[in-house]
């Protein structure tokens, strides 16, 4: 008998095959929007360095309908990133206290608490 193993090729669209791969791909694509928003922040810093008039122009640009639409898309993906990132923290960083494992929900909860604190501090700093 001769051996002739058959090798199946992985399709380029492998990730549409299963819901778990689709949600993985959405999670990975959040990085596109995080990256684009970082570009907006970098442009903002450059405009800030150019003085008050340039800064006001930047504020007007990101407040335009187009700017707001773009940022709402970024916001949706950024929140998806936060939620999925925090959800995986107990796997990456399991903690033990007095020899007992800390429940995952405590680790995730601590991240949500930190998220709330950072958000409130930034809002107060921005003048809320």
């Amino acid at each position, binding site marked *: 008998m001769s051996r002739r193993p058959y090798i199946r090729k992985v399709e380029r669209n492998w990730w549409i095959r299963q819901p778990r791969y689709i949600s993985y791909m959405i999670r990975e694509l959040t*990085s596109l929007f*995080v990256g684009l928003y970082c570009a907006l922040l*970098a442009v903002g810093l450059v405009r800030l360095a150019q003085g008050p008039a340039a800064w006001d122009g930047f504020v007007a640009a990101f407040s335009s309908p187009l700017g707001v639409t773009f940022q709402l898309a970024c916001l949706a993906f*950024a929140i998806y*990133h936060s939620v999925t990132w925090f959800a995986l923290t107990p796997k990456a960083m399991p903690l033990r206290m007095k020899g007992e494992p800390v429940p995952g929900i405590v680790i995730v909860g601590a991240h949500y608490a930190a998220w709330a604190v950072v958000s409130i501090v930034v809002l107060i700093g921005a*003048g809320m």
Partner: protein
Amino acid sequence: MARSNKPMLWLPFAGGGLVAALIIPVLILITGVLVPLGVLHLRYETIAAFAHNPLGKLIVLGAVALPAWHAAHRLRMTAHDLGLGSGIAIKAACYGTAWLLILAAAGALIAV
């Protein structure tokens, strides 16, 4: 096989993922919702004063640079996932863009 230097790429990716998760949503909430609605005003003096402070500079740079690196690294992996390859062109496009943003932000923070 030999031990990889991937931690050089991965550590800022992981740190950037955490920083992005904590700070990017509230920043977008401010610039994308509260300021356009007129609830909040980002006056030049306030922002410039924060960016003048050395600690302020560091915080702002961290909030831009780490998430930008996170995004670049993840996009590179996603390009591989999508069968777009993992050659030098993809690496240059992803990490190069991140470096461009980081250097622009750093330059602006020094100049401001």
